[in-house]
């Protein structure tokens, strides 16, 4: 064969696994838990490198993160944040179950907070009525907003990932405008609504100052999602469509309706989180305060890391809660900027997205 050199290049057919050990390792590496856990480890390593590069000690910094999040004095606060991240993880996970990405969590969160601020702030009704009403109102408004993306996808072919991403800033801007110029507290230096009347604040849990009944509402939503996902016809259809859309359509699943339902539920979950935040201390809607903690992004990361599986979300949410809450503590005690938490979240998301892309490549290669 004159035209070729003997190939030292590994063939595309199969990487030469030299030893049995290498093969075993290869098999172990294909375990579904490897990529998510690897993503987290990689993120922590990259974080360590960044901290080192800044001339600081990563061990001290991470210890500060853990301590800041888990020390008994801050547990109350940590739990409330965990709840918000779980809630926003639901908003991402429900559509993710059928293979759709909801990137509009911020808009849904703000509209929910806004609705709750209006209902709780202005409806002259007793607490037992006005609190549920505000939560429900937030769910309805944000659910309707989330729902917009479904017909855009089925009728006009605009992917849900795009429409949610593009609609979200619109809702955020509307919220900002209303808080600044319409329903804001006059004479205040900050754009914020007046404090809610006592009767319209989320019921407390004992003498905890951050975690309140809102946390229970979010836990209940997660339980419902788990039940629906594992043992309802709709949950089954979501999973079928997520696993293979064509299989679902062939089997008679109404994919368009399912997308509508999933987006309503996702929007409603985010809206409820917004309502709970507004009705918790400091009991008002402050412009930007719903978005700046980054619950949406952390929730999305937790949902991705859990692969949308309801039983795993509470666990993956812990990770991002620790990063989030501990990040602030790290800034205080170890002098590492809290933005490092965002970097770590970002790395996790990039690695998980990379896996999706690589999986697609691989299936392209073996297409028959």
């Amino acid at each position, binding site marked *: *064969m004159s*035209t*070729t*050199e*003997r*190939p030292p*290049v*590994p*063939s*595309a*057919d*199969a*990487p*030469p*696994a*030299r*030893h*049995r050990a290498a093969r075993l390792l290869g098999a172990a590496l294909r375990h579904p838990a490897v990529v998510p856990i690897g993503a987290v480890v990689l993120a922590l390593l990259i974080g360590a490198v960044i901290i080192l590069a800044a001339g600081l000690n990563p061990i001290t910094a991470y210890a500060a993160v853990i301590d800041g999040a888990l020390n008994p004095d801050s547990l109350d606060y940590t739990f409330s944040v965990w709840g918000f991240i779980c809630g926003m993880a639901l908003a991402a996970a429900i559509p993710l179950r059928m293979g759709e990405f909801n990137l509009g969590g911020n808009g849904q969160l703000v509209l929910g907070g806004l609705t709750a601020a209006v209902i709780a702030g202005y409806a002259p009704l007793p607490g037992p009525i006005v609190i549920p009403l505000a939560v429900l109102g937030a769910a309805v408004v944000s659910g309707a907003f989330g729902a917009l993306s479904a017909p855009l996808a089925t009728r006009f072919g605009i992917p849900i990932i795009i429409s949610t991403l593009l609609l979200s800033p619109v809702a955020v801007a509307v919220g900002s405008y209303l808080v600044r110029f319409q329903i804001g507290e006059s004479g205040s230096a900050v754009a914020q609504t007046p404090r809610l009347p006592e009767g319209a604040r989320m019921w407390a849990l004992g003498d905890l100052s951050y975690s309140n009944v809102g946390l229970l509402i979010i836990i209940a939503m997660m339980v419902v999602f788990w039940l629906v996902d*594992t*043992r*309802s*016809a*709709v949950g*089954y*259809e979501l*999973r*079928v469509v997520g*696993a*293979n859309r*064509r*299989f*679902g*359509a*062939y*089997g*008679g*699943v*109404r994919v368009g309706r399912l997308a509508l339902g999933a987006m309503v539920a996702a929007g409603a979950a985010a809206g409820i989180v917004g309502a709970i935040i507004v009705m918790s201390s400091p009991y008002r809607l402050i412009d930007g305060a719903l978005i700046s903690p980054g619950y949406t992004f952390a929730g999305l990361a937790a949902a991705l890391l859990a692969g949308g599986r309801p039983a795993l979300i509470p666990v993956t949410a812990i990770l991002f809660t620790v990063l989030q809450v501990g990040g602030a503590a790290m800034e205080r005690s170890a002098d590492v900027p809290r933005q490092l938490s965002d970097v770590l979240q970002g790395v996790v998301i990039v690695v998980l997205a990379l896996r999706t892309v690589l999986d697609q490549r691989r299936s*392209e*290669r*073996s*297409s*028959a």
Partner: protein
Amino acid sequence: MTSETGTAAPAVELIGIGKRFGAVVANDGVDLVLRRGSVHAVMGENGAGKSTLMSMLFGLLEPDAGEIRVDGKTVRFTGPLDAIAAGLGMVHQHFRLFDSMTVAENVVYGAEPRRRGRLDRAAAAARVRELSDRYGLETSPDAVVGTLSAGARQRVEILKALHREARILILDEPTAVLTPSEVDSLFAVIRRAADDGSTVVIVTHKIHEVLAVSDEVTVLRDGRVTGRFATASATGEQLVHAMTGREIEVVQNPRSGTPGEVALSVEDLSVTDAGAGVTHIDAVSLTVRRGEIVGVAGVSGNGQHELVAAVLGTIPATAGTVRLLGEDVTVRPVRERRALGLAVIPEDRRGEGSAVTMSVAENVTLGHHRSAPIGATRGIRRGWMSLRAERSRARDLIRDYDVRTSGEQQPIGSLSGGNAQKVVIARELSHEAPVLIAEQPTQGVDVGAIESIHGRLLEYRAGGGAILLVSHEISELLALADRVLVMYAGRIVAELAGAEATTARIGAAMAGAAAHDAPAAPDPVLDPEGPRA
């Protein structure tokens, strides 16, 4: 039982090969001798251990026991590169090509002709042309692989092996993805390669293929060799017996009984892809009555699949009507058509007929998840599913349809093709819908199971079911159909009543000749340049 009758020295000897996967014994003391310049068929039912054996020969797996000799020398391959260096080449059951690259780039990948360190495209294309001419493998070197049909992709895989100067060619179930005429040209290529001095192993479970192309046969069952034959002196019955361990009676539609009222009727149905400007089906009309099996023959890609999709409702009809049990369902969604009484065994099992990552139980549940025993149509349990009922129903079906799995929770994607097909069939037949569309119902399924699926389809017919059977296997249509329609270029070009349907007539119509004016012509499709002539 003859082997090593010839004078040629063996190109490959496998001696006492054993391999286990956990508790599964995939190969047990397998001996296999491949003579130079001959075509050797390795046959056996799904799960018999054929792919495992071939993977060990190609260095993809290491044997637990036994010895491999190539040209009389003992070898130990630690990976496929060693096997390639020793002159082996393998075409896998699932293709391993880069879709976005050209044929020439794929062929030379890993052993590129280079000029000044870069890929020499002209030399690569010339090499592909030279090999294509030598072996009669039609390809265009510059075509992008992603645009090619399954048959053309397979030719690229073969060229890849030939490019690396493979003298021993392993083909694992190469015909599973091919149309009848593609099978014929593949066999011609195989013959030519063998006449050229190459050694070819072809893995298959189709008896007529073994008889058509091979010189010798080794039969595996449950990981052991259960028969060795010189093809010339072997009969189909002997092979089946060695493969299954029992006699198989041929299933045949009795063609008795009078069909009932029309269950499915299609009138002037057209499907056009306006964007691409392609007419997939053009004014197709047909009816299927209760208690009748109507066969649809045709080379794949002549509109059969679009016909099925338009009747099911997954693609819209451009014109015409579809009536199900008398109701016009042309614009109804899939769910309503299925609820009225339609079940479909689809051709594309992995892409449409299953969700490979989900369990057997979940796969067999789709469409049954809202009705008893799993779901409920009314009452408080409406919309909820009983996981226990789901599992026990799945276990029953696994037993009834003899699906080989480690349990109902195993992902369907890890089952062999034939077993996954049984799951799909179990799901659709258990709808007991008045109308059944079966597209390639026995694809990838082995002899013993084909017989049982055919038997079930005939039972369905006897029970008053209306079946539209789309198949590329003429023998299947002849065995089952009451009438055969032949599709060509999106139209029905021939209708043959059971008695007048013959291989020759169907074959002629499949090739595009109108069957009416081609009486008992010789078989143009099935015998272009007779592989073994």
